[in-house]
């Protein structure tokens, strides 16, 4: 069970006060009408779901009701950092270089 530092309440709280809200940094397309079905589908459903460092959105729902971002290792469950909406993570996974051409 996680012990989470809320960047707005500025202290650690029990996981029961929070709710995960999925992958972070997935901006809504600025011009949805010009998205293809494929692009819209990717925005809606397709996620990186990494094993290892992951940037996710959490909300301090039973607390300050504020959303914030968290960088967490999905394998060890270690929380590397939390940061406010609009900020960028300090910890990022070293993306495995894709040897073959992207498809």
């Amino acid at each position, binding site marked *: *069970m*996680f*012990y989470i530092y809320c960047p707005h309440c500025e202290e650690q709280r*029990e996981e029961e006060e929070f709710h995960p*809200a999925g992958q972070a940094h997935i*901006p*809504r397309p600025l*011009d*949805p*009408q010009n*998205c293809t*079905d494929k692009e*819209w*589908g990717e*925005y*809606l459903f397709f996620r990186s779901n990494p094993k290892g460092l992951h940037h996710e*959105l959490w*909300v301090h*729902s039973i607390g300050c*009701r*504020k*959303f914030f971002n968290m960088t967490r290792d999905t394998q*060890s*469950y*270690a*929380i590397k950092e939390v940061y406010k*909406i*609009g900020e960028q993570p300090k910890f990022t996974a070293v993306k495995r270089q894709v040897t073959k051409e992207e498809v």
Partner: protein
Amino acid sequence: MAQQNRLTSGGRLDRSKVINFSYNGQSYSGFVGDTLASAMLANNIDIVGRSFKYSRPRGIVAAGAEEPNAIMQIGASEATQVPNVRATQQELYHGLVAASTNGWPNVEFDMMSTLGDLGSKVMPPGFYYKTFMYPKSMWNTYEKYIRKAAGLGRSPTEADPDRYDHYNQHADIVIVGAGPAGLSTALVAARSGARVIIADEQAEFGGALLDSKELINGEPAMQWVAKIVAELGQYPDVLMLPRSTVNGYHDHNFVTIHQRCSDHIADRAAKNASRQRMHRVRSKWVVLATGAHERPLVFANNDVPGCMLACAVSTYINRYSVVPGTQLVLMTTNDNAYTTAFDWSAAGREVVAILDCRVQGASAKVLEKAKLLGIKVLNGHAVVEVHGSKRVTSVSMSKINSTGDKLTGEVSKLSCDTVASSGGWSPAIHLSCHTGCRPIWRDDVIAFVPGVSLQNQLTAGAINGAYSLALCLAQGVEAGQIAVTKIGLAITEPIALANVETVAENLPMALFHIPHTKSTSRAPKQFVDLQNDVTAAGIELATLEGFESIEHVKRYTAMGFGTDQGKLGNINGMAIAAKSLNKTIPQTGTTIFRPNYTPVTFGAIAGRHCGGLFDPMRYSAMHQWHLENGALFEDVGNWKRPWYFPKAGENMQQTLARECLAVRESAGVLDASTLGKIDIQGPDAREFLGRVYTNAWAKLAVGKCRYGLMCGEDGMVFDDGVTACLAENHFIMTTTTGGAARVLQWLEIYQQTEWPELEVYFNSVTDHFSTITVTGPNARKVLEEVVDDIDISNQEFKYMDWKVATVQGIPARIFRISFTGELSFEINVQANYGMRIWQAVMQRGKQYNLTPYGTETMHILRAEKGFIIAGQDTDGSVNPYDLGMGWAVSNKKPFSFIGKRGMQRADCVKEGRKQMVGLKTKNPRQVIPEGAQAVDDPHESIPMTMLGHVTSSYYSACLGHSIAMAFIRNGHQRMGETVFYPMADGSAIEAIICSPVFLDPEGERQNV
């Protein structure tokens, strides 16, 4: 003769207090300080159960958490039965009622065992999978018998009368285990001023010292323990928890401590007291000082009662002053176990021989002592096989080679009634594995020790394979100092290391499985996991059959699956598997330890969150009135909403008819307080509404209300409601009762993460307002009775307007909106006044037969109008067009509102989607069951082609016929066509597709 095996003096007992208890219907006595196990041994009870698979007689093997055999059913009454209690951990109390859990007709004489030998031959591991397949039809019968054999103890069949609760704790340092190591850590931590919790599963602190004869600082170890416990008691921030097992170690240093508050007193807790308590602890640091479990050796018939762990024998002698036999043969791979033989002879009983498997034998100092006591010591010898059925009568022994894999001499017999064995120690690393950290094998200590953990975890003492008392004490102090400094505290007075004499020991031998003259497969059973009847042969067979992963071996043989989780057997099993695979133990590796360390009562995990407190019940301000007026309630989310208000003698249908007609003919009243209400303020509020609703909000004037549909980005409807414009930058949104929280979250996530530039605040005012809906042709008359100030005539107060008014002296916002299709007013007052206003309305409404109604009537009334209920008429797969609500979608809005793009996806605009329609049954009295599925051809063969299901269906008293809302493929193009609803009984209900608006399509009734 009572307590034959009890010594006349010694032990940590209060002999002045005799305790009577019963086992399998017979009564016995013991003393305060006894465990059930020690008392049973004192009374010379050999057989405590029958084995699970082969129903062989079994006796007590250990003295603690590792005991596999002595699994008891406890409890004096049906409701207080406790299955599978380990006798070695159950303190004795007055009137304790215990029974063995297996064996029929009884443990002394068991029918199954007569099959036993033959049976056992055809029951190798995995035999289930290899048989009972033919004939196919017989499997159910076979399984009945397999299931008969299942289980150890039994569940009570009456509800638990006891209470269990939770305690949330926060600590700087949690110390698991109060032996020399743990206590040393605690002392350092306490003196630093840290917040400390030290828990130990045993009744008393002291750990191994409770039965050790060692000296600390020249005095008996337990005096040292007493001093420390006394000092710890002085610190307000130190919590000492005996009888408390740390059963789980979770991420980010969260540990659960299962405290047994009253199990040592009775089978039922005192009134208002908790039987057990779960401490949910978040700790900065966790120090594991959990010690080690002695490892038995594996040899033929090593399960015959009288075969015990060496250290357990010492424990019974020293701590409980019970000698569990008369003639002892001790087999050991290490010096330490010699103490058992010494204790035995000190107790005045005969030590037949010490068989030391090591060719080089024990250290001079130890041998000297043996000699002094006149004990025969045979080096390079081992017990090959035990004889006797219900109790050891003798053993066969033989010389064994230095690597322990060959017998090198003649087999000869020694008669004895007790065989103590020690194969070394297995550190209690369980907790250290709970958060996924893998243990490491160390050849020097012949054991797995904790691996490197990601948690703030330290380990001290025997858990590290540190077996000398001196080392344990030193490591305890060190762990304390590290933890304390990590936390940023310091110790003022330095801790003087306690001095203890350390005896030089000879190296132990890595031996697990004693070879037999016959091959393992042909030798008498050599048990590895006693509780699951897993034998060395079974493990070898598993590997022979190709189960090479230790995890496969575990699952194929059930090794370690028992209630002891393999505390005794696992390492031996892994060693045997490794050997037959020609691998090393680290190569084969271990299986995974997971919570719980020892089993934990469900009640303790649940705490108080059951019964009436399982989930909150939310009430409106008028709830008391509903109760007093006979409402039946419907669960909606956490809310208890009035479902309908039956009058004496009415059945549900009659009630609903009465309520509906009252509304259509005169006036009805509904408690609508549970609907979500969100106060929305800010310069961008209007813009925001335009983005989250499908329809237009730009032009909604102050004083007006509008209905809105809310969709997900996929274009599917998920909530709806009316929003009123209170002022230029100020709106109040209503949501469905169940959707309130979700909608607020939805608004917040878009504002906070997508559109932070939009200036708007959302606040829930659901609980602040009580909402009283008065509806029906006489609604205005009723309102005129209670509204003090304003003109509510149709001219002054139009449909979809809202106004401030004073109702019975209380300021209110009144919304003229309608969910029934009738003239309706929703009175919103501050909830503290809700009850008063409700009562006033009821009172003044009497003359108009103002009738309270509940959710069911509300459903019927809105269905007559074809209004949807999000969640009942939608299921996350329907968009506004499917619902025929395209009118509520404004594609002219400049901003691509949430859902717009979604509902344009190929599948959402394709032909043949299921669309919301109305249904009239051919037979007007027939009501189609909700959930019924439509077909075109009722005679089509299975699988039938389904067109869609009925979402809402009622008998409409006002219309005099049944009505339904349903989805039909292409329904909007099929008006007037007939569809069929096949029923379970083979009949089919015939219905004609129509508009879902059954009543007053022009909406005149609500405009009067």
